[in-house]
């Protein structure tokens, strides 16, 4: 097992203060290894985006630590460390229609990070970098002189990816990068993300609500519910043997594109009151090698059967 690139330990994120304080993320821990894709799956309001943003240091954490390549990035960093961190962790956004500056040309959009960090010696080098990034995501270099509105949703998402790539990141936080795309474009973008992972040795934190998409691209999947990770496993294993009732409910909710299977399927509804947690506290347990679940001892017995 290779050394984790980023290690998230017991982080919590709070919003508001005093009586109105709300804990959006509650003691979440996971590692992402180098070259791995970890997916974070949950419904809206579960805190999955908040975890992603905490890693990007947009939200301060209330407890816990995030260690990126040996440095704890939740502490105050020196300005050079901070710059390095911004560069090494990049983000891809959900809605390509909303995440690009409509008034800027692609050339500027892609090189904005380069400008901010002065990552080029001269104009020619900057142009060269932009061109390379555009080619890598399957766009033509001459697109650099155009405006975002001239592109389709799939192309705009590629521009969003190019803008992250140009910074030579090591970790990409992708917040539902394909939910807003059409079926036929979706496959293109998934392939692109997979290809870039190979060629650039990238690691992904992939945030999504649709388990069917996630299965194909991720190495491991973490299921998050109301700010807590309830289950984490290798992606195939999670589909073969989901343990937590919430994971099962989530799996049953994904529509299968086959009329016969789909029409026979029974929908499982998750009821958080089913746990006997007033008697015994749930603990983060390794149910089988590499397969973790938030459970109490008596429950685990029941689920494993």
């Amino acid at each position, binding site marked *: 097992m290779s050394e984790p690139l980023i290690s998230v330990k017991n982080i919590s994120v709070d919003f508001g203060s005093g009586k109105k304080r709300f804990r959006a993320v509650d003691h979440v821990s996971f590692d992402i290894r180098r070259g791995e894709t970890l997916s974070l799956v949950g*419904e*809206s309001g579960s805190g999955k985006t908040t975890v992603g943003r905490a890693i990007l240091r947009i939200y301060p954490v209330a407890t816990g630590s995030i260690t990126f390549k040996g440095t704890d990035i939740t502490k105050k960093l020196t300005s050079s460390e901070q710059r390095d961190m911004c560069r090494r962790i990049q983000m891809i956004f959900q809605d390509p229609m909303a995440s690009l500056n409509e008034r800027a040309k692609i050339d500027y959009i892609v090189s904005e990070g380069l400008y901010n960090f002065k990552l080029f010696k001269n104009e020619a080098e900057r142009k060269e970098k932009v061109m390379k990034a555009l080619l890598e995501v399957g766009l033509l270099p001459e697109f650099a002189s155009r405006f975002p509105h001239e592109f*389709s*949703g*799939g*192309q705009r998402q590629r521009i969003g990816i190019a803008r992250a790539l140009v910074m030579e990141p090591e970790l990409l936080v992708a917040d539902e990068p394909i939910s807003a795309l*059409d*079926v*036929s*474009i*979706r*496959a*293109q973008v*998934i*392939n692109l993300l*997979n290809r870039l992972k190979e060629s650039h040795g990238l690691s992904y934190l992939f945030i999504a*609500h*649709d*388990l*069917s*998409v996630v*299965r*194909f*691209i991720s190495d491991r999947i973490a299921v998050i519910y109301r700010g807590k990770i309830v289950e984490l496993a290798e992606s195939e294993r999670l*589909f*073969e043997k989901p343990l937590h009732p919430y994971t099962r*409910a*989530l799996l*049953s*909710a*994904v*529509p*299968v*594109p*086959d*009329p*016969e*299977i*789909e*029409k026979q*399927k029974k*929908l499982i*509804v*998750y009821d958080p009151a089913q746990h006997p947690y007033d008697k015994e506290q749930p603990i983060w347990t390794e149910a089988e090698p590499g397969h973790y679940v938030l459970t109490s001892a008596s429950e685990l017995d029941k689920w494993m059967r």
Partner: protein
Amino acid sequence: MKTNNTNIKMKLDTSPKNYGDILIEAKDVEVIFNLRGKKLKALRGAGLVLRSGETLTIVGESGSGKSVLSKTLIGMLDKNGTITNGSILYRGVDLARISREEDWLTIRGKRIAMIFQDPMTALNPLKKIGEQIREVIVMHCGLDARASRTAALEMLEKVGITDPERRYEQYPHEFSGGMRQRVVIATAIACNPEILICDEPTTALDVTIQAQILELIKKLQKDMGLSVLFITHDLGVVAKMADKIAVMYAGQVVEEGSVEEIFYDSRHPYTWALLASLPQLGVKGKELFAIKGTPPSLFKEIQGDAFAPRNPYALQVDFYHEPPLFEISPTHRARTWLLDANAPKVEPPEIVVKLREHLKKTTGR
């Protein structure tokens, strides 16, 4: 055109027997939008048949014209759009020819209702949700204040909102996305419509809520005998909801058939491509099948088959002549030259032929 529609109200034939089970029959519908002086042909001769009690789903990518087609059925095309050709028959009335708003009011909301993608924008944020449902009932069913309130409460209960008395007095921002969509459904079905059009009703919701809303629509359909026109781009949702499917591409229906015919015996290369690009079918470590390129621009006149430039199975003739709809079975038709008697025999991709086996493997069910 205006001379024909003075007596529309009189002509609406509500007796079921005269038109058999066909509720809506749209033929060769052509819609043109005027955009900054340029003409965009959003529908290029699209047609569909909706039968009583069934669910017809329209699948296609954005820009394929699926929403435009559904909007022509309730007279809600944007102002710069006009129906330039074709007919949409509903109970003896040609909906394509109605131009007066008062004629539309006898149909829209009352007989044909619609729910939209985003429940946030479909509701008025300044009005109590109960009042918004009551408004529809007063307008279309002509009930008085008290009776309409009771009816609105009933509707809330029907769409699965608990404690309707309290919820009636609340505003949209006090509801979650899924609950809001339930309210929107309540306003749509408040006057017992015959046809319910759902334009991507679950795209803005996440999977668990989506599953619940789909179950609700199915249940209401059974209880109220609704016919549903369901628009989506998610083939999983299609498999769950559909009796019949129409696949749209670039303003045309390229293949139509029963749900089994489309999933297990599709004939159009575009349908194959849609099925093959499902992430559920992906094998790890291999590239997912992706349709190359992007849909054609509808600003230009399209020569031949619109899908030809992206189609690996394209024949020479596809680039010059538009294929007609070939009939495969009484319910199954596809618009591709591959079905012509002179065409070479082409097998669909292996992954599509073995769709079910693949899915069984990857979903573990």
